[in-house]
């Protein structure tokens, strides 16, 4: 277990480093970052000034080393648009996005795991087919369109929920659903497949032969084993949701990281974009690392090897 953890952690760090190189090189995608940062129509003098202040005149490798060194110390640069420290803005907005992501994941899991379990208990039954249909339809629905449709019904037609903002828990209902529903099909299918496999296993027959109650067999013996891969999937999907929150936060004007990312992209606020990509990627990397650890912990065959 310890060896596995150390190895896995090493890979995570290596991936994080690679991602940092990629985020850093985003700066050069537009050609000369000094021109991009100074803004359109700036004078040659301004551009040279920016180049000196940001250190773009140094060799790239030195710039990267410097940037990484600063990033490791929590200094992600300075946003010349917001006239503020990038890191502090990001960590101010991050909790909102995390909350949204958690609500969305919660919604997805609460919906998909029971559906997956029921579908597995009665494969090819009506419930199974309905669940499968929901999954297929859900996967085809563009999230932004789904969000707009919900606004149309719940906010405009029935006036039940507020459209924008983050003032109350009601503000989070539609965004959470819009962000979370896309995950439900995958979790549902995995739960269903896992439960189908586990339910036909020998140890479930043993549990029944012991005379255990159906609920005990189902939850204590079957779901406990079927849920292990779902944990990893949920972590991966949580990471994807944080990245995907950009669309949803934009629609509902939720002042989180996604909205910030969209704003900085529109303003060509390079240091901010770079930092957000880096923060979200690194968060994802360590999220999956902890998911793997949790996975190993849940499976005694790995934990007590």
């Amino acid at each position, binding site marked *: 277990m310890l060896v596995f953890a150390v190895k896995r952690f090493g*890979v995570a760090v*290596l*991936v*994080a480093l*690679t*991602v940092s190189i*990629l985020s850093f090189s*985003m700066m050069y*995608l*537009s050609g000369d970052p000094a021109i*991009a940062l100074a803004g359109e129509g700036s004078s040659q003098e301004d551009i040279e000034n920016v180049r000196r202040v940001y250190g773009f005149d140094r060799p790239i490798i030195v710039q990267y080393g410097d940037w990484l060194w600063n990033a490791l110390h929590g200094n992600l640069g300075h946003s010349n648009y917001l006239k503020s420290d990038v890191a502090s803005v990001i960590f101010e907005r991050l909790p909102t996005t995390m909350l949204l992501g958690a609500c969305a994941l919660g919604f997805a899991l609460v919906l998909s795991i029971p559906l997956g379990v029921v579908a597995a208990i009665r*494969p090819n039954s009506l419930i199974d087919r309905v669940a499968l249909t929901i999954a*297929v*339809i859900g*996967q*085809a*629905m*563009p*999230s*932004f*369109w789904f969000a*707009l*449709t919900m*606004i*149309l019904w719940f906010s*405009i037609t029935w006036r039940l929920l507020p459209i924008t903002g983050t003032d109350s828990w009601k503000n989070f209902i539609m965004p959470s659903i819009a962000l979370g529903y896309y995950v439900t099909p995958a979790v549902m299918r995995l739960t269903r*497949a896992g439960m*189908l496999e586990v339910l036909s296993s020998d140890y479930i027959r043993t549990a029944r032969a012991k005379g255990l109650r159906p609920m005990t067999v189902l939850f204590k013996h079957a779901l406990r084993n079927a849920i292990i891969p779902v944990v990893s999937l949920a972590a*991966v999907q949580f*990471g*994807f949701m*944080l*990245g*995907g929150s*950009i*669309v949803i936060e*934009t629609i509902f004007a939720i002042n989180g990281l*996604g909205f910030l*990312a*969209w704003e900085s*992209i*529109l303003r*060509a606020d390079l240091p901010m*974009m770079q930092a*957000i*990509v880096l923060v*979200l*990627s*690194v968060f*994802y*990397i360590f999220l*999956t690392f902890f998911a793997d650890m949790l996975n190993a912990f849940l499976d005694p065959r790995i934990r007590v090897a």
Partner: protein
Amino acid sequence: MTDTVSTERPAQAQVNAEMMEPSPGTLLRRRIFGHAGFMIGAVVLGTIFLMAILAPVISPHDPYDQVLARKLIPPIWHESAKATWEHPLGTDHLGRDYLSRLFHGAQISLLIGFAAMLISGVIGTTIGVLAGYFGGRVDMVVNFIVTTRLSMPVVLVALAVVSLVGSSLTMVIWVLGLLIWDRFAVVMRSATQQVRNLDFVTSAQAVGCSTPRIIFAEIMPNIANSLIVIATIEMAHAILLEAALSFLGLGVQPPEPSWGLMIAEAKGMMFFDSWLIVIPGTALFALVLAINLLGDGLRDVTAPENRN
């Protein structure tokens, strides 16, 4: 040895034999035509494909033609005096015919979806097959690349890159194509791993076939099924991503009639003229649903034993 210790289950073998009576071809045809999802998907996708191909011919108006005097005409099923058969789906805020824009928008969605899928398919399949075939270090490196790619948020990176290099149809295709190869790589890798250990690959190696020959002649035909299924999934994925990028204003640029862009442009008017977002949204939904149904159907039809 005697029957008493034989491992074969005769009764069951016989049952299987009886089930296998019709020829494989008949069975395949029966499965295809008996598969409702596959048929629905094929019909809807075929219709949208025809719409795209025939867009210049069947469009009642020029999709770019602005007639401000005729703006925001509702579609014909609206009980409004303004609704007219001249614009069956109405017009947008600039007076452009919505039906014509919908037809031309199908071209954009299909083109971007197909081209991005092709690019990502080539990248993903190449590295996936290499990793699966050679294993060892190659596999480790590919695994690392895929992990790195997965850790970067697609929509965010796509938006950032498009905003930095400038957005155009070609750029959107390339950015998406270069971003969404991960699933191809993962699935092709495991498919190749399964096939490469089978006896016919070993015998091909034994008789001295070259590695490229083994990969193209022995392995590729056997992983083609899963390749096609992933291709449908990724095409749908690319179409959804393009729509999202265009919706956020960083994909296909106005005045092009991308469905995502049409929804974005209509967003401000959704309070009064909700059909402006309902129509392109439904089209997008139908297209993606059709491709997914087709892909699910293909998987069921080609590999009935994996249906669960």
